[in-house]
């Protein structure tokens, strides 16, 4: 079966700083991939390249088998990929993203936030959009808040609305960019629970997180990024419990709140 996402030799530079130095990654349907690594390792940039909030400097991204962007020959004789707005918009309807700082639209009610994509981008009718929005708000347990403005909600509730907003596009894959980092500790759980439920329903996901315990319990595959490369990859047990690489061990030692489940052996 065709993988949902395939990345080949992805590079990304900001000016002279190369943040991603050749990433290869395949994500199959229903898989949950968790990216870990210290800040500056490139994990957020990698995630942001998948929905083209950052345009790759080099490399290929296939979404459901379709190579994104168009090839263009440069004056220097090299070829480069260019991305047109219309293509990008189409891709992004198939890739949902949840941000660290929620980024809800503060001037719209919760319901309107979730309806916005289906209505404005997918152009489904007002009524259908409303139904769909309610359905996804229900899913994250916030249907009763549909008429509130985001500012009235707790951080955890806001992030769940943001999840509903992304789900309402009915994407093929969901991206979570440190979705709990901006939350107070007591609000982290409800968001992690919502993500876990999605996994159980078979949603394909890439998750960037600092919550190692959560990563362990939710991931099919863990990737440890270091200096813009995938340094170590494998199952949660392989990477988190029996890491081979020195860097990975050091990184995990810095996250001592993670307790390896005793029964994992």
């Amino acid at each position, binding site marked *: 079966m065709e993988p949902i996402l395939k990345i080949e030799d992805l590079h990304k530079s900001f000016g002279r700083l190369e943040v991603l130095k050749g990433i290869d990654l395949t994500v199959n349907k229903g898989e949950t991939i968790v990216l870990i690594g210290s800040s500056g390792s490139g994990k957020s940039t990698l995630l942001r390249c998948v*929905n083209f*909030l950052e345009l790759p400097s080099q490399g290929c991204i296939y979404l459901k088998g379709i190579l994104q962007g168009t090839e263009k020959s440069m004056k220097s004789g090299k070829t480069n990929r260019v991305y047109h*707005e*219309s293509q*990008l*918009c*189409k*891709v*992004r*309807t198939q*890739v*949902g*993203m949840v*941000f660290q*700082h*929620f*980024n*809800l*639209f*503060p*001037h719209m009610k919760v319901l309107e936030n979730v309806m*916005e*994509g289906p209505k*404005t*981008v*997918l152009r489904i009718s007002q009524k259908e959009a409303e139904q769909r929005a309610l359905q996804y708000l229900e899913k994250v347990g916030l249907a009763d808040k549909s008429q509130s403005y*985001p*500012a009235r909600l707790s*951080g955890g509730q*806001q992030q769940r609305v*943001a999840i509903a*907003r*992304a789900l309402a*596009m009915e994407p093929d894959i969901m991206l979570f960019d440190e979705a709990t980092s*901006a939350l107070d500790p007591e609000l982290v759980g409800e968001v992690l629970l919502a993500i876990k439920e999605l996994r159980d329903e078979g949603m394909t996901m890439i998750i960037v997180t600092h919550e190692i315990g959560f990563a362990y319990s939710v991931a099919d595959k863990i990737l440890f990024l270091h200096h813009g490369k995938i340094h170590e990859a494998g199952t949660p047990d392989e990477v988190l419990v029996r890491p081979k690489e020195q860097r990975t061990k050091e990184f995990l030692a810095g996250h001592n709140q993670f307790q390896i489940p005793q029964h994992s052996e």
Partner: protein
Amino acid sequence: MSYEWDFAVVFQNYDLLLLGLINTLNVTGVSLLFGIPLGLFVALLRLADSKWVSRSAGIFIEFFRSTPPLVQLFWIFFVLPILFDIAIDPYSASIIAFSIQSSAFFAEVFRAGLISIDRGQWEAGYAIGMTRKQVLRRVTLPQAVKRMIPAFLERIIELMKTTTLVSAISYSDLLFQANDIAQQTYRPLEVFSVVAAMYFFVLWPTSVAARGLERRLAVSGESTAA
């Protein structure tokens, strides 16, 4: 030697003053009608990715902010007709001058408003597949406009004050009418005092409203997420 005030001459000419006031409001209103959309357009050019486009918009803004409005008005009234061999009446010259001039200032207001919106708002829009235009129209501009309202009102007050310059090219705005009446009645003290009061009672409430709004927006803290 105390001066004998006589406001009767002013009130006898109330119709001329009223006409002047209407003309003042007319020039102000119509210039806004053109100046605000033009200002938004220039602001978007200023924020464009292309350096060349952005810089041209910058030059436009700087030029009209850095020359006196009266010089601009004279240039359009005296120079444009000869250059293009067309007739421009004082009213049209005023509208052209103030639309362009205010657009340079409005462009700055729009730009400041738009860049004050968190980048995450743009990204959230893009992430659900919106185009740049859709994000602007549905997400960032509506939020920016709310923050810009006090600055807008302030610009409108400045514009209305600036419209007195049209009297220098003989368009019969409130000040021109005042001058006219003062010369005919030899009562400049009464006439100019009344006219100053008329301006004050139009402009002052606007300024109070602008400050009130500003305070309210400051208190509400413009709570965005996070």
